[in-house]
């Protein structure tokens, strides 16, 4: 019952109506079908692509790049953010550099990455790491700088050393901010993986989507897009599930459900 209550039936219904209209209009016009194949055909293509294992390789390639890029960025950015947030000198030394690099659209780094790393996996992962780092880094720094002095003094009065306090006090105290950064980077990671796959080609869902478009197999192209969307959606749900588990202490003390 609880699960049923959570489902937004009105929202699902309006999505259903939209897809139904798509189906009806495209079936009525063969010309339109070149650009918009009927929903039923897209779903059939998706079904065939999945069960002929044609997409499995591309899917796994994208997922692998996503996971390595995202997790590496999380590890690097959280560690760096805690150090930069906690030590004033470190922050003032790096502030100008961060403020210069951060507003630059991350895809602009792709040519540089190709120049240094070629067109393999390492280049795509590097680009993802780079793009995902900024939101996590900025939020972590903010979170650390917002920690109350009293909390740090409490740790010190119990004889906790400065470095130990970073893990035991600073990290959990800043975690609500860190989680925000991690959530923003989740979608950025998928964007960068897909984009770089389109540019350098070879494998991955991004490559598949562009390749099918060039071969005028539009229903396969849409099937690829649906799969990327489903991947993004699932990763987001997984993230929210883990966040609820890890941050239950924080949800209760703040406003909002």
């Amino acid at each position, binding site marked *: 019952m609880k699960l049923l209550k959570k489902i937004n039936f009105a929202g699902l219904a309006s999505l259903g109506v939209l897809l139904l209209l798509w189906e009806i209009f495209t079936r009525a016009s063969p010309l339109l079908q070149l650009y918009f194949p009927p929903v039923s055909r897209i779903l059939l293509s998706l079904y065939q692509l999945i069960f002929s294992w044609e997409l499995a390789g591309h899917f796994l390639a994208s997922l692998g790049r996503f996971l390595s890029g995202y997790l590496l960025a999380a590890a690097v950015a959280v560690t760096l953010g805690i150090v930069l947030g906690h030590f004033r000198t470190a922050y003032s030394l790096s502030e100008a550099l961060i403020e210069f690099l951060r507003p630059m659209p991350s895809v602009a780094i792709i040519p540089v990455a190709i120049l240094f790393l070629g067109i393999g996996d390492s280049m795509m992962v590097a680009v993802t790491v780079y793009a995902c780092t900024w939101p996590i880094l900025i939020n972590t720094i903010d979170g650390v700088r917002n920690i*109350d002095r*009293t*909390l740090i*003094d*409490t*740790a*010190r*009065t*119990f*004889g*906790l050393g400065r470095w*130990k306090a970073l893990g*035991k*006090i600073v990290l*959990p*105290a800043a*975690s609500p901010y860190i989680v925000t950064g991690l959530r923003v980077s989740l979608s950025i990671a998928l964007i960068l993986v897909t984009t770089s796959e389109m540019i350098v080609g070879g494998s991955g869902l991004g490559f598949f989507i562009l390749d099918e478009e060039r071969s005028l197999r539009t229903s396969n192209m849409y099937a690829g897009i649906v799969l990327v969307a489903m991947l993004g959606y699932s990763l987001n749900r997984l993230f929210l599930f883990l966040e609820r588990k890890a941050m239950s*202490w*924080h949800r*209760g*003390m703040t406003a909002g459900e």
Partner: protein
Amino acid sequence: MRLLDVEGLSKSYRQVGGESTLALDEISFQVDEKEFSSIVGPSGCGKSTLLMCIAGLIPPTSGTVKVKGIKVNGPPQNLVLVFQEYNKSLFAWRSVLGNVLFGLEAKRQLSSDAQERARHLLHLVGLEGFERHYPWELSGGMQQRVAIARALAYEPEVLLMDEPFGSVDALTRLELEDALLRLWKELKTTILFVTHDIDEAIYLSDRICLLSRRPSRVVQRIDVHLGRPRHQLATRADPKFVELRNEIYKQISDEAGK
């Protein structure tokens, strides 16, 4: 036996304009073992600064603090400070039990009997059954009890308290005062308690150190000769209590008139 020795402690702050202001001016006093001492002074006189210096959290400009004859240079192992702002001092991501265990964890004494000791302390502060709660699920008075239990679980030789009951309501405050006196008697620790409330200081203490307005100096050391255990109504109605309070008020108003 002498446990805490503050000698000629001064602290000045550099202001934004570059000028320095003196907050503490040559403060000296001692605290004996198992004694309950209070520091009383008007708001903003630098009591908290003094306590931070004693706790080794900020360095004094001159003078020394010695705990058991050893000069304080950074937070000492055998001393812990309880802050007024319990809501900023408790670890929100840890349960009540997790908070109380923190000191032992920091000391690397997280053995099986650590859990038992933490539970015992929570029992002593009247929080049995709240072990699994988060601090924000408790009232202000209960949160400060958690902070006190956490400090005592660390088994400090000196417990410093910075206006610990300053942000709870009046009734809770009386309850917490009595709870603290019971704990002090049971655990035989030494307590140095900072407050701006003269009645509270007399009610709790063996000795009171009266500070002046900024820059703070020691105005007087007062011994409190009231019997124990103390009682919120009887003790406060005791003629000796009233006399002591009058004397301290007079000192403070004389000081203000200078």
